[in-house]
């Protein structure tokens, strides 16, 4: 160690290592670095005492500050419960229309509604409420069972063909083909007739042949003009909305098999406040109109005539 070399320029010792004539300086660290290191060690002890730190056989050292992520979560959940209780109380006392008119309460109802809808309704109606074949689209302006706030709430409460005493949907669409009520040729003609009802090009001869069949079999429920009956949930055949599909194959299939949609009653499962929130959510997503168009409300409306 005695013959350590001093660097000419800086006057600092070198480490004695040399690479291609480049030597490494052995610059001492400033003393305060050492103090920072001691300080860090001291801090570790403070931390061990203050915070949860050391694992044991059946537990761990808790620390004097009592910090616990789990306790924090419980506190937050309690806070959330209190927040929900306050919100529920407000929902209970307000009418559906009042909820919708109060921006703060409406926002709360939308949050509750979205969560409940995602867990329960989205299975059939889709995550966004867009529906699918056989499952009504809840985003448009066509409502089998009425699209006002109170009608939506009623539908959620009692369901459709759900077994509930007041369930909607006592009328059913018969399976004309499967049950042998109509022949294949009649059903083919009737398909053309229904296509013509919705203002599309159809085989004129078939439409003429089916006129009497429609009057006998269909008009009782769908009306002589095919505009449906919202009171009984009978679809309007003249509009652009088709629950089971709009093409000829889909119409024929419905004539043959006569499917009838089912929606459960939610009265037993949800609190009245939750149903209110759900109704507000569904109503707002569909456009939030006080009285939306219904299946038969606008008789003979021409496609493409005006928007909503």
């Amino acid at each position, binding site marked *: 160690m005695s013959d350590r070399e*001093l660097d000419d320029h800086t006057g600092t010792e070198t480490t004695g290592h040399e690479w291609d004539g480049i030597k490494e300086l052995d610059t001492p*660290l*400033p003393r305060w670095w050492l103090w920072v290191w001691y300080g860090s060690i001291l801090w570790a002890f403070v931390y061990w005492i203050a915070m949860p730190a050391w694992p044991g056989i059946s537990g761990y050292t808790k620390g004097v500050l009592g910090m616990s992520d789990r306790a924090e979560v419980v506190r937050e959940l309690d806070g959330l419960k209190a927040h929900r209780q306050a919100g529920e109380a407000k929902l209970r006392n307000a009418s559906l229309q009042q909820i919708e008119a109060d921006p703060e309460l409406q926002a709360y109802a939308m949050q509750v509604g979205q969560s409940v809808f995602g867990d329960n309704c989205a299975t059939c109606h889709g995550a*966004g409420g*867009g529906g699918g074949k056989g499952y009504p689209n809840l985003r448009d302006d066509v409502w089998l069972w009425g699209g006002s706030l109170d009608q939506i709430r009623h539908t959620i409460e009692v369901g459709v063909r759900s077994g509930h005493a007041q369930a909607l949907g006592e009328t059913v669409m018969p399976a004309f083909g499967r049950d042998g009520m109509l022949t294949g040729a009649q059903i083919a003609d009737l398909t053309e007739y229904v296509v013509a009802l919705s203002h599309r090009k159809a085989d004129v001869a078939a439409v003429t042949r089916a006129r009497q069949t429609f009057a006998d079999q269909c008009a009782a429920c769908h009306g002589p003009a095919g505009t449906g009956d919202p009171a009984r949930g009978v679809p309007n055949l003249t509009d*652009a909305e088709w629950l089971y599909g709009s093409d000829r194959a889909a119409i024929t299939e419905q004539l043959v098999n006569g499917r009838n949609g089912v929606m459960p009653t939610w009265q037993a499962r949800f609190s009245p406040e939750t149903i209110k929130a759900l109704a507000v959510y569904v109503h707002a997503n569909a456009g939030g109109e006080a009285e939306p*168009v219904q299946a038969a409300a606008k008789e003979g409306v021409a496609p493409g005539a*005006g*928007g*909503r």
Partner: protein
Amino acid sequence: MTVVIDNTKKHAAAGDGRGPVSAAQKARAKGDAKGGLYKPREPIYPKLVHGPWRRIKWALLIAMLAIYYVTPWIRWERPGALPDQAVLVDFDGGRFYFFWIQLWPQEVYFITGLLVMAALALFLVTALFGRLWCGYACPQTVWTDLYIYVERLFEGDRNARMRLAAAPMSFDKLWRKGGKHLVWLGVAFGTGGAWIFYFHDAPTLIRNFWIGQAPMTAYVSCAVLTATTYAFAGHMREQVCTYMCPWPRIQGAMLDDHSLQVTYRFDRGEPRGPHKKNQGWEGRGDCIDCHACVVACPMGIDIRDGPQLECINCGLCIDACDEIMVKVGRPKALIAFDTDFAVAARNRGEKPRIKLLRPRTAYYAVALTLVSGLMLWGFLNRSTLDIHALRDRNPTFVRLHDGAIRNAYTLKIANRGFEPAPAEIRFTGVPGAHLRTPGEAPSDVVRVVLLPNEVRAVRVFVTIPADAASAESLPAAFSVKAGGTDAATKTVFLTGAPKSP
């Protein structure tokens, strides 16, 4: 042009009684002697100097401390419940207020721009005039200067301080040291205390602070800043600059031979040596080796060693040397703001030339002008309105009973003004489109009132007739107009056209 200074010869000089030696020099010598892993700090006792640079430093110190302490107390009337503090970083409300200017979090790029401008300005100033920031404006320098001033009040100037440090403990030493540390802590607390007023309403906070009602962040920030101020300005001082701060390294890259820096004009000073009154000045330099520049240096270096990493360009050695030069009857400015190039030129007997315009300074100036211009243009043209359209993605579109197609959007409209703004929202791009917001009748314009200083979410249903659905996706736009200002955002209208029945 690099001045090669041979330090090996000076090792012997450390403590050889020939006069004061710079702290840096002593540290080197001590490190060698011990061969230790750690180098203790060499205490520095800067001597008070008088002169123009010292006066500038005092003036800047007072000005900057005044700005720091007074700014949060300036009131500025704003409408409604908005804070009446001129400069406020409001984390709770998510706003930055600066007199008449208000920035929202999404406008933070103005702050980024300001930082870029500050960096470029620093580059330019450094390339032109050396590390002026370090010597005059850096908080570390300003507070260290203040702390040394306090130290001098209690312990006297350099020689008295050194005597006191060497003296055994006594009542006199105790009260001087104790008083100094108490005042230091007071200043440190004042520094940390003033900081937190930038983040909350100052009069409210100062009251809450003392009755224990202030937010925890205020107490923690105050404590941390008190501790760092006391440690950095009282104890660490030049070590912060030489070891911790990245600027000295970065700024080294900005300097060249033409940068004006505090320079010892060795062409005039060498060969140095003591000078007796009756001796002449022929055949020798002007430097009388009195070490006035060394003892005045707050960084503990010898400026005569040439440009160094430690030098913060504060110019105190200029004042110190000029005092001596006047006394010995030689011209001032043996140490002065000068360039390496000029010193070398004089050394060769040529006429020195100060060259401010160089490619480096030109680049920095152009970049600074461009960025400043861009930021200023952006700032002057920023709208108080802002609109964003979020289109519903599930379902992407809805077909209505009459075949019309509807898309739903949530518009986020920000009103950055201080007054409520009645606004008109329009949808363009698809002919025959109708707008409707819940609770209103369909129309081609939606009218809402935008509350001041808020973002308003507006649900808008856009319906187009069936025959307008010419493509699966139609380019469209929302525009909002309120008073004299407007804003627009692009979006699309989805029709699902190819799948139409």
